[in-house]
């Protein structure tokens, strides 16, 4: 019954007339790139002004489905900054568990998509199957696979049930052997070394000039991570390492994300074992007039929320800045000068919200369209096959 058609993109060939990333090429090299965004612009900052402080948490969870927790985390920290309150210890640990669980699932998702772009569809299927275990863990802990609705200004909304912890720890431990095998397969594979090393290099100077964030910057030697630079959550009470590499190419970005997954697993297990007893909510009564800033290290980088209040129960202004906003312009310096076949993987390596990367066209300097996004993915997969034959 099942046909034997190989899906060229399990993801949305929206390239009928995309002008999302417009690459201008000369021969095989990209000479210019133009980025058009705005397809997902939902005017959330304006919607926040209509909702009360508690309701805003639900709205901004839905800014992104993949790093859904990072926005409520930064927002609740901003509101707590206005009110100058301290969240109880148990709430900090629960927040950390949810945030790190999300980081694991987000990095695995990216790894699967990157595997697909390179033509390693087995990695894609394996990693997404592994990811289902993490989504099960999040469902046991919070009730939903995504959009956990655990955060509120002042603490967390629901407590965790310690009866669930043995099953949760068992599930987390069950993914580690497969992750080890994947890590070995990815980091020691000569084809991946040839394919990804030296590609799409973001220099440290550029990373600082663009104010790039997250694994994109840490792969270029910029040792900045909100979890280490700011004292919040349970991060300063657990022993974990910040992963920084020096070369800034796509291979380093893969390494940073794979190793960060291990650190996140470590943090989640430690938090579950050492969860302190106590209150989960410090019950803020009113938010006084003032302004507050909250940040959090999302899987892609630092999320930044600024909230201004005038004493009523609605924010007067809510500014949201997702990390991809600072990372996406770096494509001007990483993609220009590269081969067309590498364009997809370089753009994917900054880990934008995935529906951004497939909408690409390639044009010659006089405007004639040469390739579509689907073609670019195919070119990328073919280059990997060619390298496999050579090695």
């Amino acid at each position, binding site marked *: *019954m*099942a*046909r034997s*058609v190989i*899906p*060229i*993109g*399990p*993801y*949305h*060939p*929206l390239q*009928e*007339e*995309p002008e999302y990333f417009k690459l201008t090429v000369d021969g095989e090299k990209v000479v210019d790139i133009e980025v058009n965004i*705005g*397809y*997902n*612009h*939902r*005017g*959330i900052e*304006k*919607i926040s002004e*209509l909702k009360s402080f508690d309701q805003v948490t*639900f*709205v901004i969870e*839905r*800014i*992104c*489905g*993949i790093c*859904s927790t990072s926005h409520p985390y930064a927002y609740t920290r901003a509101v707590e900054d206005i009110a100058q309150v301290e969240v109880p210890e148990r709430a900090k640990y629960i927040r950390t568990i949810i945030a790190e669980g999300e980081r694991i699932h987000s990095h695995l*998702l990216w790894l699967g998509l990157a595997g697909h772009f390179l033509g390693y569809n087995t990695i894609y*299927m394996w990693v*997404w*199957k592994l990811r*289902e275990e993490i989504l099960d863990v999040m469902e046991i802990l919070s009730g939903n*696979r*995504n*959009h956990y609705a655990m955060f509120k200004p002042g603490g967390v909304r629901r407590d965790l049930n310690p009866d669930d912890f043995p099953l949760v720890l068992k599930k987390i431990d069950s993914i580690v052997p497969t992750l080890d095998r994947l890590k070995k397969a990815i980091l020691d594979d000569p084809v991946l070394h040839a394919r990804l090393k030296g590609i799409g290099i973001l220099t440290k100077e550029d990373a600082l000039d663009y104010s790039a964030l997250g694994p994109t910057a840490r792969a270029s030697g910029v040792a900045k991570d909100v979890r280490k630079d700011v004292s919040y959550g349970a991060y300063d009470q657990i022993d974990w390492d910040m992963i920084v590499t020096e070369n800034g190419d796509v291979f380093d970005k893969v390494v940073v994300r794979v190793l960060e997954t291990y650190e996140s697993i470590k943090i989640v297990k430690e938090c579950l074992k050492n969860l302190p007893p106590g209150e989960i909510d410090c019950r803020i009564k009113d938010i006084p007039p003032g302004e507050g800033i909250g940040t959090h290290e999302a899987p892609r980088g630092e999320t930044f929320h600024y909230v201004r209040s005038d004493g009523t129960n609605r924010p007067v202004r809510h500014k949201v800045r997702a990390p991809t906003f600072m990372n996406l312009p770096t494509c001007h310096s990483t993609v220009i000068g590269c081969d067309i076949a590498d364009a997809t993987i370089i753009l994917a390596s900054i880990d934008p*919200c*995935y*529906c951004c990367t497939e909408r690409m066209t390639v044009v010659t300097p006089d405007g004639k369209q040469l390739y579509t996004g*689907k073609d670019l993915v195919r070119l990328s997969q073919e280059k990997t096959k060619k390298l496999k034959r050579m090695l």
Partner: protein
Amino acid sequence: MAKLGIKTRALLKSPWVFHVATGSCNNCDIEILDVLTPRFDVERFGILLAPSIRHADVLLITGAGSRKSMERVMRLYEMAPKPCLVVCIGECAMSRGIFMPSYNMPKPIDHYLPVDAYIPGCPPKPEAIIAGIVKLIEKKKGGK
């Protein structure tokens, strides 16, 4: 019971789906991809992602219909070979949900296109998506 034309019968046996995101948070999109991965695996039922709109039998729409993306979706729908079923997945596609007051989201999707099925949820679980597609296929087989 009405007799189904050959085109509709072929569609219902192995529907090829084409997915469009019109201003969503991508969660529904990820759950649609999840439905194709080994745990749920609808490929064994013949449901595959169509490589282009011209091979599509079912159009899956997520997202609240932002202005820029709806211009493109209308063009896509015209290019799709009829009969093409339209399925709205998620709260945003059904009525824009919490994004109703947004200045960039003027109308719900079914004010632009005729919709055949709605799958609610934020996001709908993969089981719900499969149940929705099966219900749609059975409804169409029943000749409505």
